[in-house]
């Protein structure tokens, strides 16, 4: 039995175990242990991440004349580790006091629903592992569908009617994506009669250019929908915002990244840079697939980030950022050089670490206050200092500022854009970062800073069962920012295995002849600066006095707790004056147009079926068919 067999069988058995334990509270101890065990098996396979050989599974299935096989390479391992870390953090978070809270929330069937949440989380992990292990297009498709349905189930767990709507919307998008993938697979099969990865390249060269473009468009539609690229991003924020608690943290951290995984496998590993770069539309050298994807990525960085800026709900704000951050990953990946692809791939890990932590802080805030609405929060920093710390670290990472890991990956992407002569894309990326900084400030200000509401005076810090996973994720965010060399070997090994130029690194960061990055040095300088500042502030400054949180004044007036000055509406009035008119919702319009079109066609057919004279219909059809025969007969019969 190979390591991969062990991994898949064990996670399948874990799923069964959770199924049978779903109605007992033993689940709370069992689930984290199971995730830890799966993580251990992955660590056993860690040779993959340091240039080891591909792990294959001894299962193969032959059906309909296709052979399906499963294997793990450095890329799969990388994504699997992220999946397991996110799942472990979510499971630990769920297993403590949050469990009681959730059961009470859900009413009489609380325990059952809580068990279901654990079960579905494990199902998500299991299907992710199956997808990551896929060794040919058919098993890729099967894994793809399974992951989509597992995340649909996770989203549909919330009992609210709106959540169900969001989940169904996701499902329709996901089905459309899956069908696009199926169409692409059918095209490949028609051209080459095979679905093996290895043969894809040979098949591709046999197709005409138009067919190649259609094929690539079908693939990219499928992957973009799951990944949430503009203009297929509309499902994501709503669906994730309604997903119950830690489930949302897991989904937001990794689930939609399977889109990126597929991009890497199909576009980078199989089709490759040269092919993508030479596929141009309308005979314009500039309008090639690579450039189009780059600009879609840039739009994905900008548009959702600025939509996030307008949100009044913490979960939604984070979910919109999730879409925007995906843009950076694709931006780096599509540069096809060592530093850009490394940045894009590393961003998956970094993003997952702080996004999971951020979502968990919001869940923690909801646990204590019952809401994630910015207009009903504020000033919680004195009440929940550690949660505040986690969020602070998280947003520094999300905004891509040192010393957190988000800075490292974003720096690499910027660097690659500049070095490869893409100043416009660089500006777009920086513009996106500006929006990120503004909106994460809104996030932390409206939850933890500013005015504490009267009803939140008794709020306490969340229990340790919830703090530990959050703090652990923050620690990862910091450590991998301080020493990116811990992660970079994995990235280098991926680059090597999929045939990209390999990045040179050391513990502190990147070694590059045109200017590398040493995070240890950067952090030391930063801490030194902060240290000097602290010395000046605490020891050399004038007298200071502690004041109560409610002891405020503005415009010469005292503000008591009864005066509400903490709000989220029109948070950046000056900025909105400038960019407000750009919010048009044009993609929403596109979605509505498609629905109307379907509705119209449906109406037409329904009228046809409602006809009062079915026999007349029969006669008409017969005449038409015979007429068609007559017309055709001149040509062929």
């Amino acid at each position: 039995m190979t390591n991969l067999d062990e991994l898949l069988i064990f996670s399948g058995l874990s799923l069964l175990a959770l199924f049978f334990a779903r109605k007992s509270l033993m689940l709370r101890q069992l689930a984290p242990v199971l995730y830890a065990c799966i993580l251990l098996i992955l660590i056993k396979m860690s040779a993959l991440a340091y240039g080891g050989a591909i792990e294959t599974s001894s299962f193969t299935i032959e059906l309909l004349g296709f052979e399906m096989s499963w294997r793990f390479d450095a890329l799969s391992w990388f994504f699997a580790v992220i999946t397991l870390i996110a799942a472990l953090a979510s499971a630990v978070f769920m297993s403590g006091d949050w469990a009681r809270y959730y059961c009470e929330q859900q009413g009489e069937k609380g325990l059952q629903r809580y068990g279901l949440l654990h079960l579905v989380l494990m199902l998500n992990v299991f299907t992710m592992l199956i997808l990551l292990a896929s060794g040919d297009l058919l098993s890729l498709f099967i894994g793809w569908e399974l992951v989509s349905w597992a995340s649909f189930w996770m989203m549909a767990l919330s009992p609210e009617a709106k959540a169900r709507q969001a989940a169904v919307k996701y499902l329709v998008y996901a089905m459309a994506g899956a069908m696009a993938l199926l169409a692409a697979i059918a095209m490949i099969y028609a051209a080459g009669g095979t679905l093996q990865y290895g043969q894809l390249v040979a098949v591709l060269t046999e197709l005409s250019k138009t067919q190649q473009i259609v094929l690539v468009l079908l693939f990219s539609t499928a992957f973009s929908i799951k990944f949430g690229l503009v203009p297929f991003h509309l499902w994501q924020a709503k669906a994730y915002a309604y997903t119950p608690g830690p489930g949302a943290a897991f989904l937001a951290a990794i689930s939609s990244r399977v889109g990126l995984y597929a991009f890497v496998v199909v576009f980078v590993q199989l089709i490759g840079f040269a092919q993508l770069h030479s596929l141009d539309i309308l005979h314009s050298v500039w309008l090639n697939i690579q450039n189009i994807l780059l600009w879609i990525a840039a739009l994905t960085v900008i548009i959702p980030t600025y939509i996030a800026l307008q949100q009044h709900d913490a979960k939604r704000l984070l979910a919109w950022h999730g879409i925007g951050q995906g843009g950076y990953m694709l931006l780096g990946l599509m540069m096809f050089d060592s530093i850009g692809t490394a940045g894009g791939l590393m961003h998956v890990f970094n993003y997952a670490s702080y996004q999971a932590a951020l979502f968990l802080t919001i869940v923690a805030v909801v646990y204590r206050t019952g809401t994630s609405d910015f207009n009903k929060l504020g000033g919680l920093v004195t009440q929940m200092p550690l949660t505040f710390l986690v969020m602070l670290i998280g947003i520094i990472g999300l905004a891509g500022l040192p010393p957190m890991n988000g800075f490292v990956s974003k720096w690499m992407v910027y660097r690659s854009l500049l070095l490869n002569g893409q100043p416009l894309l660089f500006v777009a990326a920086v513009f996106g970062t500006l929006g990120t900084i503004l909106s994460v400030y809104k996030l932390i200000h409206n939850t933890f800073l500013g005015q504490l509401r009267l009803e939140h005076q008794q709020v306490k810090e969340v229990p340790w069962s919830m703090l530990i996973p959050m703090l652990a994720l923050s620690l990862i965010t910091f450590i991998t920012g301080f020493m990116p060399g811990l992660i970079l070997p994995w990235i280098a090994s991926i680059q090597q295995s999929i045939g990209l130029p390999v990045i040179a690194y050391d513990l502190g960061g990147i070694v590059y002849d045109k200017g590398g990055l040493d995070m240890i040095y950067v952090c030391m300088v930063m801490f030194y600066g902060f240290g000097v500042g602290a010395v000046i502030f605490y020891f050399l400054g004038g007298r200071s006095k502690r004041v109560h949180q409610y002891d405020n004044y503005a415009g010469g007036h005292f503000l008591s707790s009864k005066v509400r000055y903490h709000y989220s509406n029109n948070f950046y009035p000056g900025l909105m004056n400038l960019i407000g008119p750009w919010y048009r919702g044009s993609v929403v319009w596109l979605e509505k147009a498609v629905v109307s079109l379907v509705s119209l066609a449906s109406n037409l057919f329904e009228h046809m079926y409602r006809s009062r004279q079915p026999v007349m219909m029969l006669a008409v059809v017969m005449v038409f068919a015979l007429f068609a025969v007559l017309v055709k007969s001149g040509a062929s019969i």
Partner: protein
Amino acid sequence: MNEMALLVALPLLGAFLIPVVARISDFAAKLLGPLIILFILGLCFSAWNALGSSATAIYLGGFIPPMGITFYIDQFAILMSILVSLVFLVIWPWNKEVELREYSLYLLLLAASFGLVLSGDLFNLYVFYELLAVASYGLIANQSKHRGLAAAVTLRFLFISSAGSVLLLLGIAIIYTLTGSLNIAHLAVVAPEKLHNLAGFSAFILIAIGAGVKAEMFPVNAWVSEVYAVVSKPLAVLMAGLISKLAVILIIRVLLMLYQQPEALQFLLIVGVLGVISGELVAWRARDMIRMLSFSSIAQLGLIFIAFSIAGEKGLWIGLALMIHHLIVKGGLFFLAEKLNGSFANLTGCASRSPFAVALFVLFVLSLLGIPPLPGFWIKLALILNLAAEVDSMYFYAIVFILIATVIEAAYLFKLITRMYQIEESQQLLPTSHSSSVKTSENRLYYRFAQLFAVLLISVMVFISPIEKTLFNIARQSSDVNFYIKTVFPGYYRSHAISKQQTDPKQLSPDKRGETS
């Protein structure tokens, strides 16, 4: 092998005997039908073993074809007969207080079904088709639940269905005028010469549209949603699951043996695609369970037509697999619809009342959509990939439409399913006409049947590989025109073909016809 004729004779005899037997004992009359079906099942299984991979023809009354009545028996026919018997066994009005004539009608329907499966000539196909139609009018009109509505619906169904029969008869008449024969094997020999012309092709169109009325073919299927709304669930299972398939088989027999040419296949492809698209679109707007299932059934039949439009054995096995899959899935869904009945508004939150029924519903729906690893996925995959392998670009557009239709299908089915799982506070305030509150014995029985179909579906999933191989072998055998001709005319064909080849070298021999068309 001659005892296979009993498949038609016994149920017919039983249908006439039931009133007589009922005079002696009511119980015996009730038992007669199931006994006949069980006996026939036994016959079928023994024939399956005896036949192996060969086939045989029965000449009724000893007339040698092309004269007389011929039954053609191969694995395909036996498989269909087994399915027919099993379905009838399930939908038999077991514990309902029904009038005796309903038993007779069911037995008539059974005889007609076997006749359609086994007949080797066009005239008998027509006769059994008519018998099927008449028996089904009787059954629909006899629905005790909505007697008045049933009569009106039956009348409308009767109009369109008999118009369809007329077209079918017209088509057969044209074929007879062109060739002077109605025996399928004989027709298969002469088809390339006499039928592949304008008149012959019109005959095919007429047959396809005529039988298409029962096969729920676009656009002569307006009756579907009306009829399924008034009939009882077992009858709906029978009509959607089985009778529509038998009409398809009639069309396919004609297509396979006489018209393996691109025009006929394209015709099926076009009506199939239109059926899929229109069915899914109208189902998308449906607001009650039965209407949704009816139009989903139209779409599935469209998919079956698309499958048969792939030439040769590949199309046949995929179509066959789709038929069986649809039989299981729609059967299960219609039986569940007894429990999950009514408009969608009434179904809100029903998962909390009957969680297992809704779980079964989800299982069937997932297979219907084609989600791995359920059987529906493999069949759909095979269909898509084989369509992609066709050269004609029309097949590629068909793929596009199928995929779009699948997305629409997922949208409406899961809108309903999430509604079922919704938690509604104001639920108790609504006046519910929900039938699950009424726990009748019928209700429970249908629910058991739904469970049975689910078990079947799961076992198909587990044994997908051997089932695929069996179906493929069956399809290879029954799509082989030569094999059919040889079986029916052991001596005649060889001499005929040889002499023809010698006299007219331009005439294609039947061996190569499949490849060149």
